[in-house]
């Protein structure tokens, strides 16, 4: 068995099995009312089931790869005297220590994680609002104008002010009709792309695992 071909062949075999198992498994109705259809459907679903379980654990384990990378990079930076990398490593080590000592304790989460994350999400508001004010700087055309107009009407429509009732009705219509259409278009497009690239990968035609 050759080297590069192996990955391609494994991809092809595993991919086809998984797709068929996921698409056809667990539905006896597909095979009519024959006596064995129940069993057949169950068997068809099994490879997909096993592979899924496998992959779920692999993905859970892959966090270790991420952590190794994070530590490798920041220990490297630390040796070059970067202060913040020390902060990161210390915070990482302390959290691990804390969670090992106080198992199931969530006060660290509540004291540190939640406030920082919430505050960052709140900062996002400033980024979004000020970014929204600069749209015409980047897109000084009809699309920028349309974008800003929609942003303003949806924002105004969300206000609980009696004077704005017509705007509210308009923005409700906007959300129900054109926005729904546009969102569907984008989602359908992404779904199509996902399917096509997915099929290509399943067929063993993607280069990513050959290099």
């Amino acid at each position, binding site marked *: 068995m050759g080297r590069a071909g192996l990955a391609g062949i494994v991809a092809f075999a595993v991919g086809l099995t998984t797709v068929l198992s996921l698409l056809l498994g667990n539905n006896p109705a597909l095979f009519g009312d024959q006596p064995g259809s129940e069993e057949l459907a169950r068997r068809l679903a099994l490879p997909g089931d096993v592979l899924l379980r496998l992959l779920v654990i692999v993905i859970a384990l892959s966090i270790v790869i991420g952590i190794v990378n994070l530590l490798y990079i920041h220990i490297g930076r630390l040796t070059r005297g970067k202060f913040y990398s020390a902060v990161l490593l210390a915070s990482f080590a302390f959290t691990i220590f804390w969670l090992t000592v106080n198992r199931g304790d969530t006060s660290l*989460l509540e004291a540190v994680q939640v406030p920082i994350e919430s505050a960052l999400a709140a900062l996002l508001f400033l980024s979004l*609002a000020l970014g929204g004010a600069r749209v015409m700087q980047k897109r000084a055309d009809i699309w920028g104008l349309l974008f800003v107009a929609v942003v303003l009407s949806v924002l105004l429509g969300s206000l609980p002010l009696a004077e704005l009732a017509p705007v509210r009705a308009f923005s409700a219509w906007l959300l129900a009709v054109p*926005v729904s259409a546009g969102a569907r278009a984008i989602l359908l497009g992404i779904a199509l792309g996902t399917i096509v690239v997915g099929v290509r990968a399943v067929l063993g035609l993607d280069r990513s695992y050959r290099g």
Partner: protein
Amino acid sequence: MSEEFNWLDYAEPDEEAPAPSARPGLRRFLPRRPTLPSLPGRPRLPSLPSIPSLPRLPRLRRRAQPALDKPSAADLLSVHEERPLDELDDRLQSLRERAVASSQPEAEARQALYDVDELLAAPEILRKPGGVISAAALSKAQRQQVELLKDIVGAPQAGDASVSRIRLSPPLFSLSAIPRIIGTAVLLLMASLPFVSSDFAEGELPPSEFHEDRHGPTTLYNLLDNLTPADYVLVAFEYGPTAAGELDAIAELFLRHIVAQRAVPLIVSSNPIAIAHAQNIISRVNRSVAFSGESLRHGRDYFILRYLPGGPLGLRELSENFADVARVSYKGTLTGLQFDSLDDVTYVVMIAERAEDMRNWAEQVAPQLDRTPLLAASGYAAAPLAQVYADSMDEIVGLVVGYRDAYTYAEMLEANFAELLRDASELGSGSAEASPAKIDEQPRNEAAQAERPLATAVPPASAIPPPAVAPLPTTTPRPPNTETPTETALPTATATQQMISVVEVTSPRQVRIRRGPTTADDILQLAQAGDMFQIIATNGDGSWYNIALSNGLDGWIAGILVEEKALSMAEFLGGGGEASARLSDERVYLRREWSLSLGKNRPRYYQSNAPITGDIPEYVLMRDRSAEVPRLRAMTLGTLTTVVTIALGNVIFALSALRRRQRNGERK
């Protein structure tokens, strides 16, 4: 490729198209060889044609391969990679040695051709451990020449640190930062104003019931209200601390609603931090919900299941192998739960932070649900997309969106429990006048409950379900109640100037508000010093006041515990905007007691705005209102400011773009 040959591009596969029969991928079957194309007389790779032993792939694919894989990464990699020296074949080894040798010019030659040979010398190939093509570097002599040239031209020296990296970033403080700073300041200021003063009371509060056009949220509420003890509800916390500020409120309400009916929430999440955060929420609910002096216990009153890694993959596992997912808790211990499939839980409730989560649940979980409805709640950001899915999939019911809907939900929950309160008191031990007619209704109610459809949406108009809180399997009979609390017309004046009579609680201890003007009447609610209520009427001798409560009901309070006052409506409303009652501490607790009457354990509910401690066994905090109103006002004011900022900013930028365009036009 028509590009000039260069060192870094030398291995473009297009340069050296392999024989059509050889797929580029096959090259990797061969022993690693450098494929320097510039070397003459490169031996043909003899093993190439002898590959047919490969599994036969479709002919189409074999033929398409060479062109399609053109700059295939595999190819690039096979060439660009560093290989140990000893892998080179002999001919190349010797070539390399010659190159290394020739880069050390001999002394005689240098004397013979002064300087010229140095300039012409081949680049030195640096000896690097393990690699041959690591870098093509200049020889020492060449470097000196370069430095000389640089000196002449006046270019900076190589070692000059100040210019080694050209900084293109603008200075951090420039005039252009000023609008930004002003914008930030204004936005923050406006969003904080409502917390400082209640003068900035812009806008209406959210309604106390979902708008009748919105069937989704109402249905969702009714479904959760239909739970019976020991029902399992899968609650997906698909949000981390990022969205805690927005979604904690609704998550807490859902949990309270479920727990108050003794149904068991099973919490799952595909976000690891959300699992930890869910514990926080539970402990927050715990601080307020106590059963018989005990708090909620993991493994009995609620479960947190293990984290589902891999996003949609984890969800797929959840929907296909729910039996396994439910076996293990987040701590890695056995839960003892046994399910066959996801259809065994009564409802699936999903709280999504991002549109992505909604999509994942719609794609991976919803199609697998046969009977169980998926009840969804989301933040504003996810709402437009979530709405698309909620509209187009039958399995998904309702969409409770954001903080304003959470407020409405809390109002409904409170009103509902207030109704339970009234009913319980009508049927409770004190009310011996429980008429036979009401008891007669019991079978009908039970029958109605038995045929209650679980999976189908309950129409919003359906009767509010019986209080399913009793630990006993029997349901408490309750008269059908068509009256909603909002219908209780209060004599509150609409004109704010009108003077109204109120009572203020002066007793330092908690005061009971009762159903009727005697101490034998049932307790409806507890009040504490500083609370103010609007007077509806007094009893004959004026020893009891009939007062309006904040939840739309009315009750009686003893005159000796309160002080009567006359206030204008504006003054009365000044605090928090309650129409009929002004509570000193805006928390509403619902206390539940079990009392034996007519041989049955019956729940009795009291409401209080102060935490109940000590001997009283059970109570439920329905909501924490302390920050609700200022937050809602801050959102309104903040949105208004944002609208102005965005409009102003874009007008300025549009005008400047127009001017620029005009100027360009003139120039042309």
